[in-house]
């Protein structure tokens, strides 16, 4: 466990008494992984019981192992990793593990789909899958949490977020998602997880927020937009194929060009147009890859992303201006 920073040092830091409405206490654990901090927050109906504490601690250890397993294989900062062996030329990709080759194939596919804005090759030619691995690790950890029977949690790995359920589960302990809407009307209504987004100009403050949850809490905005397409879907189109229905937003990833400047390379000329890009999507790998790709690829990639994927995007330009899809806007009057 890490020593917690003094809450007083942060502007507007929450105090225990300032917990959001809803009576299920949130419990959090943190650990170090992949050069950053991972926070697991779980909403238990009986949050302060010993059982809840035990389950939280156990879950935290399990996902810490998930992260460690991937880091041990893919970290370029570890000399004994498979990724380092590849980088040194000791190991060839054709002889690499199935997992390594699978991730490489996935990275190549993302490169194609983002028209080269996302790439797993550093300019020096070294294969660097870190842009994919963290999202993968978060997704793996999410599967572990589900396997452990946890339904209401928020996982934050260095600012990339994946959620399940709600921070205000039914005290009766029903883990099933009730069919009703998820309007955050306070009280015991299940509300979405609310993720704040850091202001890149002043990282102690929030630029905005975005609701994440199983129910497409932002789907109203997505559904309202392309009336023409609803028309177009006429005969053949099935809606909601697959596990994630349109408008579902369980994941939010933010990438920046200021931090870890070695991490994202602008495509072509000059400095990146955007200093920070947040992408909300149904899954964390898509959110993470697209956020990275938009920072690297600028406006063209932003337009490609919003056209090709069901995502919301908030981009901060170098002069502090904002570009946003509807999901990042304050609610309409309606």
């Amino acid at each position: 466990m890490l020593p917690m920073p003094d809450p007083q040092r942060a502007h507007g830091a929450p105090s225990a008494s300032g917990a959001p409405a809803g009576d299920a206490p949130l419990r959090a654990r943190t650990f170090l992984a992949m050069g950053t901090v991972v926070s697991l927050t779980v909403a238990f109906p009986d949050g302060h019981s010993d059982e809840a504490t035990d389950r939280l601690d156990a879950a935290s250890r399990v996902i810490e192992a998930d992260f460690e397993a991937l880091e041990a294989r893919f970290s370029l900062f570890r000399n004994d990793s498979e990724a380092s062996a590849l980088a040194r030329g000791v190991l060839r990709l054709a002889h690499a593990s199935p997992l390594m080759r699978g991730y490489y194939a996935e990275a190549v596919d993302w490169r194609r789909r983002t028209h080269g804005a996302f790439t797993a090759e550093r300019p020096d030619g070294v294969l660097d899958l870190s842009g994919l691995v963290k999202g993968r690790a978060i997704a793996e950890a999410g599967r572990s949490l589900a396997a452990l029977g946890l339904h209401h949690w928020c996982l934050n790995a260095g600012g990339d977020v994946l959620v399940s359920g709600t921070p205000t589960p039914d005290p009766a302990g029903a883990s099933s998602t009730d069919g009703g809407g998820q309007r955050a009307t306070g009280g015991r209504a299940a509300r979405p997880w609310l993720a704040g987004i850091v202001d890149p100009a002043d990282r102690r403050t929030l630029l905005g927020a975005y609701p994440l949850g199983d129910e497409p809490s932002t789907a109203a905005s997505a559904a309202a937009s392309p009336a023409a397409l609803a028309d177009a879907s006429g005969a053949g189109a099935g809606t909601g194929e697959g596990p994630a229905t349109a408008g579902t937003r369980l994941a939010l990833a933010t990438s920046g060009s200021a931090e870890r400047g070695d991490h994202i390379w602008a495509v072509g000329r000059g400095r990146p147009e955007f200093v920070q890009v947040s992408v909300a999507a149904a899954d964390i790998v898509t959110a993470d890859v697209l956020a990275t790709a938009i920072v690297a690829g600028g406006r063209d990639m932003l337009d490609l992303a919003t056209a090709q994927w069901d995502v919301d995007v908030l981009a901060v330009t170098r002069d502090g201006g904002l570009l946003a899809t509807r999901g990042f806007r304050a609610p309409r009057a309606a």
Partner: protein
Amino acid sequence: MRARAAAAAALASAGILAAGWQAGNQVIEASSTTGVAKTGTGATGNAGAGDSTGPASGGAGSSTGTGGTGSSGGTGSSGGTAGSSGSQGSSSSASLKNGTFNGPSEDTRFGTVQVAIVVAGGKITDVKSLHLTDAERRSQMISAYAAPILRSEVLKAQSVNVDTVSGATITSDAYLTSLQGAVDAAHA
């Protein structure tokens, strides 16, 4: 191992082929989208449009409700010119055979689109949408276009009210400049 390498190489080249194929498709899509715009407008501007234009663009033409509605709406000006060309071209209609004809399956920015036209008496009498789905589950509802907004227009939250904090990854000691740290501390 050798077999694996060969398989990997084959996969890679298949990927390249697929990419090239897609690039080709983009061109096709561009041209057929223009066709939609032309005849769509031609139909309104010119009562005879239905039996006027060539088979391919005619098929797309009455599909205003189907495939490319969004894009055809966008190109109003080209539609204007097409209206007149439609009226000039009303001689080429006799060659349409009766029957139902499936158009090609096109990857568009809205997903995969395929339409069929029904021809009776040498005229297109119906256009059906055969396919508008999307293998990768990118939804039929595309995301809203990202537009410039003011800071005051962003969905806001006080930091005391958020459950988690998203930001660009930084080193662990900065820990999202302790905003996330503070949230975690409150939930310890």
